[in-house]
């Protein structure tokens, strides 16, 4: 067994980060906190792409492109999310997600 | 596009034309719908002519056939990976049903000439519904069949919920829920057939070449039969029918009782009996008992009804029982009778509901005891009503007799898988309905049309021209089938042979395919 980082190490790392992100998404009360947790998720997903690209048996570059796309999408998402937070804050004076419960029948 | 596809494309195209009509032109909408359906009537006549030209009606090949022979087939691969194809065609039974539907929708459009609330949406939905019905009758791919089936069933919810009367939301919901539940059963059955055939195809003809294991047939047959039985008003799954029919607007009742309920019998025959002959053998007696209850129970329940529509709905329960009863006699005579009964009940009940709508439009009541002596002011409607009533009690010379005599004879002739004595006893019980039917039909009609004319009805008028045309067509159809049945029997006989011949096959015979 080797301590030098192999595929599995990398994957475990990204999975841990992803799990932490999940925890955050599920528990943060502040909407901005939720957004940050989502960024963690996206980050670890991008990392996974790069990891697989790195360890692929053939020279690929598609993983890197996907990571790029993820970063771009994350940026777009952050912009929209911020706009939404501002709009919600303006109308409800809070961004506490436990207070925002109109999503039910 | 082939001839058969036009059968359902035409109403659909008419529906689109209706939707695209500019708002505020209700007259235009009706004219388009009428033009579309009359065109369809002509198309059906042409297709029938073509069909009669190409189809073989006699000969040993027809008599010994084991696989339904289709004519005017169109077959195009669709989702090849799933074994789904666009597969439409005609055999005698579908031809017969197409004729029925074409007549009923034409008269239905005429009968809804007085619709004033959102006519555009009404006619569009009606036409979409009917294109689904045509699709079911011509499709020979299980997937396509189911697709069209859903298209036919779903608009009913809106049609009753929006244009209905009385507790319409309740009825619409109940009807839709029960039919959806039955669709689920049908879907389960179809998927089981798809899986069980091992051929990875929804092609009905291909599946029919497979001999399913007995155990498989024993559970799939009741699933299919009950699934289709719900829409065919099989006891005790019939209760959507009285509520639904009484709440629905006239044309919808006509179509629903006249055509949609036939999908049940048609499916039970085409899918249940044809694909699962051994399942049918094992379950025949059970379902025969159930349908006997249907027949008698519907008739007795009709006696007690005060509302004309409820009354007709229960009589439909009784008559649709005959359809299913005929199917499970598992012999040539009975199955032919079931098909004719589908047709005759379709026409008869469309006539009934059409007339009820017309009478209701005038008297503003459907309670029989509130009426009386109406024959004096509306003789045309009275005559048509009497003819419909007489057809429903199986008077010779009208279509009902041809069907019922076939079914009773079928029940008496019996088959080799069920106990003959039990079958005969059940048949005798079923025949008792002809008396009960006479009782309720005559009581109902006497209350409505005979007796002293009430003061408030003295100013009412007889049928208008459109109403005369629509009822006239239906009456003439009833009489033609009743007096010259041989054309129609020839039409369906060739299609029934394979269904019956397959019943006699032993497991080793299946190797021929």
């Amino acid at each position, binding site marked *: 067994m080797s301590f030098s980082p192999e595929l599995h190490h990398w994957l475990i790392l990204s999975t841990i*980060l992803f799990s932490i992100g999940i925890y955050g998404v599920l528990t943060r009360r502040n909407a901005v906190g939720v957004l940050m947790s989502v960024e963690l998720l996206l980050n670890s997903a991008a990392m996974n792409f790069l990891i697989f690209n*790195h360890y692929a048996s053939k020279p690929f*570059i598609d993983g890197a492109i996907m990571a790029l796309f993820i970063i*771009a999408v994350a940026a777009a998402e952050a912009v929209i999310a911020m706009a939404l937070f501002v709009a919600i804050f303006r109308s409800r004076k809070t961004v506490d997600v436990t207070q925002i419960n109109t999503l039910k029948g | 596009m082939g001839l058969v596809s036009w059968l359902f494309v035409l109403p659909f195209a008419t529906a689109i034309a209706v939707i695209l009509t500019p708002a505020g032109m209700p007259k235009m909408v009706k004219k388009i719908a009428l033009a579309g359906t009359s065109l369809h009537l002509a198309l059906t006549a042409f297709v029938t002519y073509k069909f009669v030209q190409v189809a073989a009606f006699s000969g040993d090949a027809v008599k010994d056939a084991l696989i339904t022979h289709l004519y005017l087939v169109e077959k195009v691969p669709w989702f090849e990976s799933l074994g789904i194809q666009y597969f439409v065609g005609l055999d005698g039974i579908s031809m017969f049903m197409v004729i029925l539907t074409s007549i009923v929708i034409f008269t239905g459009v005429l009968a809804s000439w007085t619709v004033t609330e959102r006519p555009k949406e009404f006619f569009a939905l009606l036409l979409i519904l009917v294109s689904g019905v045509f699709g079911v009758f011509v499709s020979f791919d299980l997937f396509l069949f189911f697709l069209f089936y859903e298209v036919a069933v779903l608009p009913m919810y809106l049609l009753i919920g929006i244009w209905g009367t009385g507790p319409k939301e309740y009825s619409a919901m109940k009807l839709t829920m029960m039919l959806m539940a039955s669709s689920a059963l049908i879907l389960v059955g179809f998927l089981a057939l798809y899986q069980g055939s091992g051929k990875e195809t929804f092609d009905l003809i291909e599946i029919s070449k497979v001999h399913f294991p007995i155990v498989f047939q024993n559970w799939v047959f009741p699933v299919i039969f009950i699934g289709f039985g719900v829409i065919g008003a099989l006891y005790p799954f019939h209760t959507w029918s009285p509520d639904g029919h009484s709440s629905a607007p006239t044309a919808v009742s006509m179509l629903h009782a006249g055509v949609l309920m036939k999908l049940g019998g048609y499916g039970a025959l085409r899918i249940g009996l044809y694909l699962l002959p051994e399942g049918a053998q094992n379950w025949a007696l059970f379902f025969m008992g159930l349908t006997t209850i249907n027949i008698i129970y519907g008739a007795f329940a009709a006696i007690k009804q005060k509302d004309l529509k409820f009354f007709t709905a229960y009589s439909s329960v009784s008559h649709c029982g005959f359809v299913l009863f005929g199917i499970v006699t598992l012999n040539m005579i009975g199955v032919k009778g079931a098909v004719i009964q589908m047709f005759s009940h379709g026409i008869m009940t469309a006539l009934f509901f059409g007339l009820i709508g017309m009478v209701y439009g005038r008297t503003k009541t459907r309670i029989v005891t509130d009426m009386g002596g109406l024959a004096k002011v509306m003789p045309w409607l009275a005559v048509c009503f009497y003819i419909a009533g007489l057809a429903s009690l199986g008077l010779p010379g009208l279509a009902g007799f041809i069907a019922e005599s076939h079914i009773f004879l079928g029940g008496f002739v019996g088959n080799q898988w069920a106990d003959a004595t039990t079958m005969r006893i059940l048949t005798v019980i079923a025949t008792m309905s002809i008396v009960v039917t006479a009782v309720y039909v005559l009581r109902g009609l006497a209350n409505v049309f005979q007796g002293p004319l009430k003061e408030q009805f003295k100013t009412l008028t007889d049928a208008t021209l459109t109403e005369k045309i629509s009822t006239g067509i239906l009456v003439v159809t009833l009489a033609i089938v009743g007096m010259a049945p041989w054309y129609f029997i020839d039409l369906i006989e060739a299609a029934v042979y394979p269904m019956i011949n397959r019943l006699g096959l032993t497991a080793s015979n299946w190797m021929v395919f």
Partner: protein
Amino acid sequence: MDITLNPADLTHTIAFYTLALTSIVAALIVVTAKRIFRAAVALAVVLICGAGFYILLNYDFIAGVQLLVYVGGIVILIVFAVMLTSSLESIEEPPSLGRKALGLFSSLAFLATAVIAFSETKFPLSSISAEQPKDVAKAVGRKLLDYGAGGYVLPFEVISLLLLASVIGAIVVARNPKRKNEGSAT
């Protein structure tokens, strides 16, 4: 136990573990910090560590992008969001115990499932990393603008459209409705 003592590898390994530990701790802070601003700072740390990882994986260009866009753009954006919706010092109410437990359960369940899943899976990869393109930035650029087979020009355009749409959308959503009439008047 055979521990290779290749100096390059050793540096590599140490860097990996250091960064991993940092990023995990920082990520934990992101999700648990009561002060939302502190969380934002921790997020920046995680993302910077991420850039470090990319360098370790030989994707210098992506690491640069990560730093520029993520740390430089998104984190700033988030800080702005924090400031627009609450004061920097505001303290978040801790989540309820049940929610915490559920969240913990869910994340651990995911972790366990994922780890078991890929430890059971035999990836068709060589343990030794394959020959990478010499210049990642160049390769990425070519691939992105390549309209032949395997080219990404269409997604690239779509992404640009998405960014544009999100910018416009953000403006529309966040615009103060009270000013709406004035805006349309001019």
